[in-house]
């Protein structure tokens, strides 16, 4: 067998119950290359990588490392073969330092010699250009630093093959560039790097080759230099897709929601929202950009009456009566009783917006079951609504009695957004509505948001893909560490400008510390 290949997969299949996550995958990873694994969400990228990293065991097929067939039953086996995976969710001990986390679990003689370990960590950092303080505690670190720790941890264990699962999801454009330069240096050092992603422009800028997965199958591996976005998208989706968003000019714009001096302090006493002021207008899509966890969730939840607000007000201008009411310190039920038609598509669909184990009908009922004086629930109207949403939004489901957890991500989201829109809202808040959705479903969702805007709804859209935000939104609010760092016009703003605003508050903080 050729020694060009670090990993070869032959006929790898993995099933979860009746769901086939990977089917007969044949794929090679060469030595000293960066291979991007591209595919829509749910196409089996992560499952495939987890089989190489020892998290799952394939039902069928063989894995060869450097030409030798191997059995990988656990992450320990994977390490023995020089494979290390950096997961999307970091697995670090918060109160330990970087070095302590890195050596944790290693069985070698001088594992208790922290000084020596620290030297080695420093060595690795210097070699590849990592910016890492070996003695810094994890809880003091920003997300990008934690990721660095995870990468060094894998290198420390002598990995020659690194798998990174969506490493850029939590990074700003600037941090992404930094990560990419490190990855290139590692490749030049002879390591094989597999990077899972669904962001096209990243694939094109970092990888040497691209392996495309579709519905669990490996459809092609192409040289990055010889391909383009259109071809890759076609491979990924299986057909040509037109990717454009139309943005109409806002009509009849009035102030619908006026947020003033909103401040939120969480249980740990941290200010998660700090003096937030903004206006959401009817007939407009207001985008909210920011690094994940900068206060987006708290902001939407305090408007929806799910957060304790320590200061500030949320004023709602009722278009019917012309009255203004303050939503602060109101429960979701009180807000509704005030005649405020506020719909909210939360980030955690199955954990908050819907109940996974309930069927579509019962999930429709969540908003409406209280209606009427009877002590019994009325399932007739929710059933009609469910049927209506299934046919109008083309939800793929056996029937309306299927538990929503068994639907795919895109269909779950259609059920949720469908229900929220059916309440004919005047304000629609959507947090990461396309996260985890395939391209076609994403565009269905964007179209729905655009329709709502044209109907005069004030749409608030929290997004993570800056490309989409600048294409879809009329105005974009940038939030960083719970503060608003800028409001830009969606038609004239650039991604770089927004990326800069996203990190602006952090840099200020660091200066203050220094």
């Amino acid at each position, binding site marked *: 067998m050729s020694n060009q290949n670090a990993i070869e997969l032959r006929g790898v299949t993995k099933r979860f*119950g009746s769901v086939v996550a990977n089917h007969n995958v044949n794929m090679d990873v060469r030595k000293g290359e960066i291979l991007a694994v591209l595919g829509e969400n749910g196409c089996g990228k992560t499952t495939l990588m987890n089989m190489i990293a020892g998290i799952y065991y394939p039902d069928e097929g*063989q894995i060869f490392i450097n030409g030798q067939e191997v059995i990988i039953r656990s992450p320990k086996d994977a390490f023995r073969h020089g494979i290390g995976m950096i997961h999307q969710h970091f697995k670090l001990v918060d109160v330990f330092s970087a070095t302590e986390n890195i050596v944790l679990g290693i069985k070698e003689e001088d594992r208790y010699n922290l000084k020596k370990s620290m030297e080695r960590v420093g060595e690795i950092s210097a070699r590849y250009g990592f910016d890492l303080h070996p003695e810094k505690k994890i809880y003091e670190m920003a997300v990008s630093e934690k990721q660095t720790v995870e990468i060094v941890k894998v290198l420390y264990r002598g990995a020659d093959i690194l798998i990174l699962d969506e490493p850029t999801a939590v990074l700003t454009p600037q941090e992404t560039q930094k990560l990419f330069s490190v990855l290139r240096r590692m490749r030049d050092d002879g390591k094989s790097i597999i990077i899972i992603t669904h962001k096209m422009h990243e694939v094109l800028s970092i990888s040497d080759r691209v392996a495309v997965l579709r519905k669990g199958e490996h459809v092609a591996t192409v040289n990055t230099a010889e391909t383009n976005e259109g071809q890759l998208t076609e491979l990924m989706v299986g057909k040509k897709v037109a990717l454009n968003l139309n943005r109409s000019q806002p009509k009849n714009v009035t102030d619908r929601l006026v947020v003033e001096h909103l401040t939120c302090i969480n249980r740990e006493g941290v200010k998660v929202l700090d003096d937030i002021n903004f206006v959401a207008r009817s007939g407009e899509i207001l985008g909210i950009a920011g690094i994940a966890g900068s206060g987006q969730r708290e902001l939407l939840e305090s408007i929806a*009456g799910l957060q304790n607000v320590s200061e500030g007000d949320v004023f709602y201008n009722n278009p019917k009566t012309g009255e203004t009411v303050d939503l602060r310190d109101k429960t*979701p039920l009180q807000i509704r009783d005030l005649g405020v038609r506020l719909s909210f598509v*939360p980030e955690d669909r199955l*954990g908050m917006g819907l*109940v996974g184990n309930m069927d579509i009908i019962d999930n429709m009922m*969540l908003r409406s079951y209280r209606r009427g004086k009877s002590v*019994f*629930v009325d399932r007739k109207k929710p059933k009609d609504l469910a049927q209506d949403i299934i046919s109008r939004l083309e939800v793929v489901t056996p029937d309306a009695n299927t538990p929503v957890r068994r639907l795919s991500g895109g269909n779950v989201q259609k059920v949720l957004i469908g229900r929220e829109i059916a309440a004919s809202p005047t304000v629609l808040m959507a947090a990461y509505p396309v996260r985890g959705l395939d391209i076609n479903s994403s565009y269905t969702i964007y179209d729905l948001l655009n329709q709502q805007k044209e109907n005069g709804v004030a749409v608030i859209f929290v997004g993570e893909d800056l490309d989409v935000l600048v294409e879809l939104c009329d105005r974009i609010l940038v939030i960083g560490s719970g503060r608003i760092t800028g409001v830009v016009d969606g038609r004239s703003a650039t991604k770089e400008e927004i990326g800069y605003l996203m990190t602006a508050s952090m840099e200020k903080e660091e200066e203050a510390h220094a």
Partner: protein
Amino acid sequence: MRKDTSVQPVKKAHEPFVHITKRGELVWWRAWLIRAGALILAMLLCGLVTVMITDLRPMDVYVALFNGNFGPEVDTWVVFRDMAILLCISLAVTPAFKMRFWNIGAEGQVLMGGLASAACMIYIKDAVPNWLLLLIMLAASLAVGALWAAIPAICKAKWETNETLFTLMMNYIATQLIAFLTIFWERPKGSGTIGVINQMSEAGWMPSLFGNRYVLCIIIVAALTVAMFIYLRYSKQGYEISVVGESENTARYIGINVGRVIVRTMILSGAICGLAGFLLVGGIDHTITTTTAGGQGFTAIMVSWLAKFNPIFMSLTAFLITFLQKGAQQIATGFRLDPSFSDILTGIILFFIIGCEFFIHYKLNFRTAQKEEK
């Protein structure tokens, strides 16, 4: 231990002997086939164990199991009565469990309900007509049972205390309270027991119906079973319980007051436990001891869980467990074995019944010879 593949001269890597994969949704009859198979296997093992440690013939064991319930020497009404009580307590814990509120305090709630009934019988005696006394006892039992359950629920709703520990501790308080009152009310003095209350006047004793003392008790539980089924499936409150149980975040998101639902549901749960206490004291025992509930507060959890919280299925699981217990007792006493022997048999059977759920959700894949040859 598996050899390190890198040093193995053979190209073919060693496939693990067995690996586990998750099944898809099983057709309902296949799931029941697995359950039935588990029950048969359990019976076979029970027979084997009995034959191994005693010198009985296997068939005798099964006959005894059956005779313990429907044999000539036993009153089958007693079997159904005990099943009704177990079912009643199972119905009581179900709304709480459906809400993911781990109420393991049913034992104490039943005892407190029984205590309330006993106190009414002792202090009111035949001062009022019997029907009125029974109503007073019922009301007192429901109230005290509900109170005993509401205390941990309120603490959970207000301060997020751990309901499992709290309800468990409440059991001990209930037991000790009864131990104390037993001495206080003991009769005759020095006997250490309360004895049968109102033996002469039969005040506070539930009346016979159709010539049988237990029919009323069974009818009440049967009605309750249907009511609970309807409550959980079709009422707004039942719907709220499901939502809170599945996801508290969703409940808050749609404006359910989670704390209120927790307290309300636990009051219901405790009140039904109180009802079970009333049935035990007013309808069956006519006395109270620390063992009146007899561990059924814990067995009920299993009954409820095995039936996946469906009250109709629960009547089946309650019957199964009562049947097993009675049968195992018959095997132990009929053949003059130690009473713990019946626990061993019930243990084996339950192990199989609960364990077979694994095979309903997962599949074992054994290494196939064919692959070895490739």
